[in-house]
């Protein structure tokens, strides 16, 4: 493999990682502040994508579509938080798993009922489509570069939000000591709703951005959910920094595994077997990574809370 291809694959890994970060950030935020395992995070991702597709079809504007995705997912987040989620904070993880599993069923089939059984159309806007040539001669899709940019901006925004704003102070307080925020005179119930909506909005944004280069269809949230969980567990649940590190690690591992393993096995195996076994192993690779990280560091890379 040439150096240039390797460089491009590294970029792909980074890009995939940032994409994962977009989907994982909200999940880890919600877990960190409220201690809630939200399996329905993938559904909020789907809602974002569907809202974007619907608005893009009606208005023709991608920007409007992205805003709609954020709004729709946040609205769905608030609705779900008020009706269901807030009753679950005091419960154990089992109840949370079951309840949010139920939410997946409702959201998935509800979406299918609203939008039908067929995938929807959502495309990259013209001004972001096609490749650009990077220094070194790599042709790289502009849209993927945009995703990297947006992802890093979101990461920066979250860091600033948590480090510099009043909401951030409350969030940090909520992470370390739930009784303290009550003592600070913060309306916990409202804080939780806001944080949940923020997490949902992030999922929705990810749904719109990623939906444009993937398939907008019912069930698109589940694989994303599993990956997002892998990412935040590797990073240490509740840590934004960990989510970023975990996403990039997973992105690189997955991409490089897919790119390199079949070739590696080809060095000492029949090509057909090498392709098959290399691919099989590469599809297991991120789970192997997660298991190894947890065996070495049982609370993830940046995790504090057991």
């Amino acid at each position, binding site marked *: 493999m040439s150096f240039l291809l390797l460089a491009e694959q590294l970029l792909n890994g980074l890009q995939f990682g940032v994409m994962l970060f977009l989907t994982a950030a909200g999940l880890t935020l919600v877990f960190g502040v409220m201690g809630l395992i939200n399996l329905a995070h993938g559904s909020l991702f789907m809602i974002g994508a569907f809202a974007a597709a619907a608005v893009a079809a009606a208005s023709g504007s991608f920007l409007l579509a992205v805003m709609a995705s954020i709004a729709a997912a946040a609205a769905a987040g608030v609705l779900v938080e008020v009706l269901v989620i807030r009753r679950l904070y005091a419960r154990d993880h089992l109840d949370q798993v079951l309840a949010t599993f139920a939410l997946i069923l409702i959201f998935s089939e509800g979406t299918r009922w609203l939008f039908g059984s*067929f995938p929807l159309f959502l*495309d990259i806007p013209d001004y972001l489509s096609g490749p650009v040539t990077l220094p070194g001669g790599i042709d790289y899709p502009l849209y993927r570069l945009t995703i990297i940019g947006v992802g890093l901006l979101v990461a920066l925004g979250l860091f600033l939000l948590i480090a510099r704003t009043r909401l951030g102070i409350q969030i940090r307080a909520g992470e370390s000591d739930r009784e303290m925020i009550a003592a600070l005179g913060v309306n916990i119930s409202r804080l939780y709703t806001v944080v949940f909506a923020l997490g949902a909005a992030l999922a929705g944004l990810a749904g719109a951005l990623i939906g444009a280069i993937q398939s907008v269809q019912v069930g698109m949230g589940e694989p994303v959910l599993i990956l997002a969980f892998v990412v935040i567990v590797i990073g240490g649940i509740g840590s934004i920094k960990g989510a970023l590190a975990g996403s990039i690690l997973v992105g690189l591992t997955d991409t490089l595994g*897919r790119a390199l393993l079949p070739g590696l096995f080809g060095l000492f195996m029949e090509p057909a077997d090498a*392709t098959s076994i290399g691919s099989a192993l590469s599809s297991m690779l991120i789970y192997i990574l997660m298991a190894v990280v947890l065996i070495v560091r049982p609370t993830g890379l940046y995790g504090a809370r057991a």
Partner: protein
Amino acid sequence: MKLNALVTLASAAVLSAGMAVAEPVKVGMITTLSGGGAGLGVAIRDGFMLALKQSGTTDVEVVVEDDQQKPDVAVQLADKMIQSDKVDILTGIVWSNLAMAVAPAATAQGKIYLSPNAGPSALAGKGCHPYYFNVAWQNDNLHEAAGAYANSAGLKNSFILAPNYPAGHDALAGYKRMYKGDLAGELLTKLGQTDYASELAQIRASGADSVFFFLPGGMGISFLKQYADSGIGLPLVGPAFSFDQDILQAVGDAALGVHNTSQWNKDLDNPANAAFVAAFLAEYGRLPSLYASQGYDTANLLLSAMAKADISDKDAFLAALRAADFDSVRGKFSFGPNQHPIQDIYVRQVVKEGDIYTNKLVGVALEDHSDVYAAECEM
């Protein structure tokens, strides 16, 4: 449409005098009606029901159930339909792995299975069965046709990829069976994968002159969008599944101009097809898909057999099915010795008609094509 209702198609037409009045034939349709794969099951069901409705028959009772794309649910439904609903015929399954779970057991219990979509090689070769009919294609067929098309289009250095599961392996094997050029690369992707940046980089670096891919469902939509955006621009070849009427609208411009292989298209010039396309559009308000055409043909095959023989006379009924004496929307249609289709497979190209993305016929890839497993079938 009400699911699971016993759809006794009580049209106004009273049984015409003189026709053999038999017990109605009970059909159990197990198909995917929820979740991400529901579009395919809905299309098959709609096509099947349309044919029954058009025939005006009152002799078919259909029980429709949702398999949720889970093999064990499909098995359970098959048990229910056989043991409880006492169906004579099973049909409807979309996916190979579900068909593998249901069909062998059903035929072993003396039920006829008509496959409207999946055609795993295991059921075409050694595992063939007098009670198993495939009305769509053997899984390799469209890929073989893609290989044949690649030859005729002068493609000499293909990069090929498919998901790492049995149907994916079959796809690559099928393509390579017919394709005479070199391979620039071969990849097995993860089932359910949604991001193809790594694969696209390898394609770009491989020096290929064309790309063959088999990525059903959402995987294909993702791949096509990302391929178009990558600016690689090599000719794409693939089976019809990623260019099906129902998902083309979701792919959009990214699919325009791509050649794909199919045993059917909406502009195939025969009266049965013209009637089918018009009726489907009128009934459901959308253009029919490949899967709908297969569901429609499956129902018509069944009706043709019912006209000739009584279901209680199994041998006669099977013979009537084997004769395939119906007007297929594909034009020519007959069964080979393993009861899989012998049919022409066409080359289509994705075009835009007004606002609608659709396919037009551009040629024939393989004529009277059967499958390589037929020789292994001892029946």
